[in-house]
C-alpha cells in the first residue's frame, strides 16, 4: 500500500489555527489532548464516567466483527497507522480521536478508485461481540477522483468502541456516507469522523443513532478546495437513561464551499439525554460560502432533556449565506387535534407526526432497505412509550 496517498486530495495549505474553546488544535499526539476533567467546553455535556475507561486509553486487541459487501472494483485492505495519516484529513480534535488512532494498531482502508461509479451501496457491518470488550478502531474511507459511491456503516451488537474515521472525498467525487448506530442497550460508542471534501466534491453524511448506553460522535468537515459541498444529516431517538451526543464542526477552509447541517431527535423516558453541538467556522479565505445548521428536538415525555448549541464563528465579511436554527418542543397539540378531527386515533396521529418529523431526513437516504428499517425502528421506539 505504498501508493496509498497517491490520489488523495491535496493537502490543505497551512492554515492559521483559530484560537477557540470550541475546537482545539488538531493533533495525532495523544499528549496534546489532556485528560478531560469534564469542565471543558468540548466535554461538559458528556458523562465521562460512563465512557467505561476509554479516556484512559488502555491497550486492547479486541476487534469488532466486520462483514462487508463490496461491489466490483471496491477494495478493503489493512494499512499502517502512518499510511493512514498520510491520507490527509484533519488530525484528531480531541483525546478520544487521538487515542483511537494511536491504539488501533493500523487502519482499515475502504477504497473506491478514481472514476469508479458504484450504484449499489457498499455495506459494512461492524458488530460488537461482547459488551466487556474495549475496541479501538481506525477506519479510512477514500473516494477517488470523480468517483461516486454510497457507503453504509452499520454498527450493531455491543462493545466499548472508540474509533477514528477518516473520510477523503477527492476532487469532483460524490459520497453518501450512511452511518447507523443501532447498538445494543449496553454499548458505549465514541467516534470522530473527519471528512475532507475535495474541490467540487460532494458529501452527504447521514447518521442515525438509535441504540447504545452512551454514544458520542464528532463529525468534522473541512475543504481541500473551492466548490465543495457537505450535508450532515442526522436522526436520533433516545430512550430512558440513554446519552446521545452528536458534535458537528464545519470548518470552511476554502472559498465557495457549502455546509448544511440538519439533525432531528426525539426523546422519551426518564433521563434520556441528547446533545447536539453545531460549530461552524468561516475562515478569512472562505469567501462566498454558504452554511446553514439546524437542530430540532421533539421531547415526547417528562424527564428527558435535549441540549442544543449552535455556534457560528465568522472571520470574513464576504458570505453568501449563513444561519442557524434550533427548536426543542413537545408534541404540538394542534397537529394531533387536526389529525384526530379527521378520525385518526391518537396513537396513530402521534406516529404520523413523529414520522413526519423524521421523514424529511429519512426520505433522502438512497438505500430503500435502510429507509424502511429506520421507519420501522422509529415505529418500534414509539411502541415502547
Amino acid at each position: 500500500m505504498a501508493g496509498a496517498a497517491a490520489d488523495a486530495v491535496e493537502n490543505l495549505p497551512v492554515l492559521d489555527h483559530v484560537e477557540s474553546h470550541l475546537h482545539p488544535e488538531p493533533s495525532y499526539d495523544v499528549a496534546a489532548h489532556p485528560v478531560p476533567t469534564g469542565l471543558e467546553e468540548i466535554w461538559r455535556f458528556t458523562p465521562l464516567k460512563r465512557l467505561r475507561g476509554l479516556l484512559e486509553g488502555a491497550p486492547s486487541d479486541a476487534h469488532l466483527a466486520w462483514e462487508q459487501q463490496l461491489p466490483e472494483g471496491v477494495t478493503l485492505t489493512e494499512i499502517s497507522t502512518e499510511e493512514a495519516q498520510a491520507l490527509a484529513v484533519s488530525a484528531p480534535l480531541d483525546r478520544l480521536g487521538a487515542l483511537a488512532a494511536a491504539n488501533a494498531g493500523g487502519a482499515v482502508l475502504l477504497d473506491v478508485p478514481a472514476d469508479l461509479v458504484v450504484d449499489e451501496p457498499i455495506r459494512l457491518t461492524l458488530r460488537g461481540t461482547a459488551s466487556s470488550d474495549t475496541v479501538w478502531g481506525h477506519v479510512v474511507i477514500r473516494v477517488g477522483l470523480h468517483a461516486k459511491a454510497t457507503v453504509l456503516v452499520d454498527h450493531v451488537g455491543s462493545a466499548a468502541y472508540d474509533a477514528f474515521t477518516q473520510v477523503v472525498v477527492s476532487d469532483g467525487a460524490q459520497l453518501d456516507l450512511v452511518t447507523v448506530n443501532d447498538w445494543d442497550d449496553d454499548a458505549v460508542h465514541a467516534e470522530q469522523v473527519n471528512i475532507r471534501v475535495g474541490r467540487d466534491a460532494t458529501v452527504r453524511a447521514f447518521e442515525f443513532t438509535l441504540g447504545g448506553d452512551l454514544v458520542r460522535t464528532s463529525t468534522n468537515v473541512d475543504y481541500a478546495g473551492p466548490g465543495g459541498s457537505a450535508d450532515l444529516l442526522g436522526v436520533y431517538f433516545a430512550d430512558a437513561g440513554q446519552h446521545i451526543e452528536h458534535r458537528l464542526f464545519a470548518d470552511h477552509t476554502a472559498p465557495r464551499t457549502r455546509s448544511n447541517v440538519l439533525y432531528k431527535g426525539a426523546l422519551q423516558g426518564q433521563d434520556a439525554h441528547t446533545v447536539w453541538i453545531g460549530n461552524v467556522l468561516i475562515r478569512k479565505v472562505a469567501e462566498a460560502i454558504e452554511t446553514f445548521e439546524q437542530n430540532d428536538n421533539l421531547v415526547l415525555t417528562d424527564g428527558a432533556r435535549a441540549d442544543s448549541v449552535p455556534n457560528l464563528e465568522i472571520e470574513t465579511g464576504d458570505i453568501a449565506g449563513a444561519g442557524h436554527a434550533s427548536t426543542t418542543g413537545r408534541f404540538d397539540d394542534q397537529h394531533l387535534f387536526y389529525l384526530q378531527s379527521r378520525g385518526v386515533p391518537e396513537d396513530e396521529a402521534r406516529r404520523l407526526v413523529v414520522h413526519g418529523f423524521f421523514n424529511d431526513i429519512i426520505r433522502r437516504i438512497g438505500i430503500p432497505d435502510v429507509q424502511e428499517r429506520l421507519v420501522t425502528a422509529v415505529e418500534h421506539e414509539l411502541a415502547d412509550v
Partner: protein
Amino acid sequence: MSTLEIKNLHVSVDTEDGAKEILRGVDLTINSGEIHAIMGPNGSGKSTLAYSIAGHPKYDVTDGEVLLDGQNVLELSVDERARAGLFLAMQYPVEVPGVSVANFLRTAKTAIDGEAPKLRTWVKDVNAALERVTLDPAFAQRSVNEGFSGGEKKRHEIAQLELLNPKFAVLDETDSGLDIDALKVVSDGVNRYSGQGDRGVLLITHYTRILRYIEPDFVHVFVAGRLAETGGRELADELEASGYDKYVKAAAV
C-alpha cells in the same frame, strides 16, 4: 335520517384570570338534509361552538349536551367523534410538516371507514376531489397544509369534506379570506356534499356573501355566546342591510 342536537351548551376557556365562559347556553337542532347558517360578529363564540362540537381540548364544556342520533358525543374523544360522523372545516387549518396529503387522506379514510380504501380507485378519487376544488393533484405529495395559501387551505378542507363524506359538517368561516373564484369553488363543494340530501351542514360565517351561493334553510344570529334570533334567508338579508348592532345591544342589556 340523522340528527345533531346541541342542548344548553355552556363552554369555558382557561384564562390567566381563571375560567371565562364563552358559550352561554346554545340550543340548536340540525337534521340531515338541512343547511343552517350561523352568523355573528367577531368574538361572539362561533369558533368556540365549532371546536367544542369537534372536541378541542382547550374548551371546557361545563353544561349541556351534543347528541348525534341520541348519543352524547361530548363523551367521545376527538377521533371517535369524527368516526361517528362529525367533520369540522377549520377557520385556520393546521400545518403538519412531513405528513403528505396523500398519506394523511388515506389514513383518515381508513380510520373513518374502518377499512383501507381500494388502492386503484382511491388515487383517482383523491385526484378528482383535489381537481374539483381546483387544487393540482401534485398537492397530494406535499405536506399537509404546509406552505399552502389561505385559499388553498380552505379548498383542501372542502376536498377532505367530500372524500370523508361525514353525516354532519361544521364549516367555520370557510369563506373568510377567499376571493370570488375560490368562494364559488368552495360553495360548489358544499352544495355537492349537501345535495346528497342526507347530510347536515352548520355553516358558520361572518359575512352574507357566501349565502349568495349556498341556500340556507335556516339563518341564526349568534351573539355573546348564544343564539339571538332564528329565521330564514330573509334574516341574512336584514343582517346585510343593518348589521349586528341591534343584536349586540340587546345582548348587552
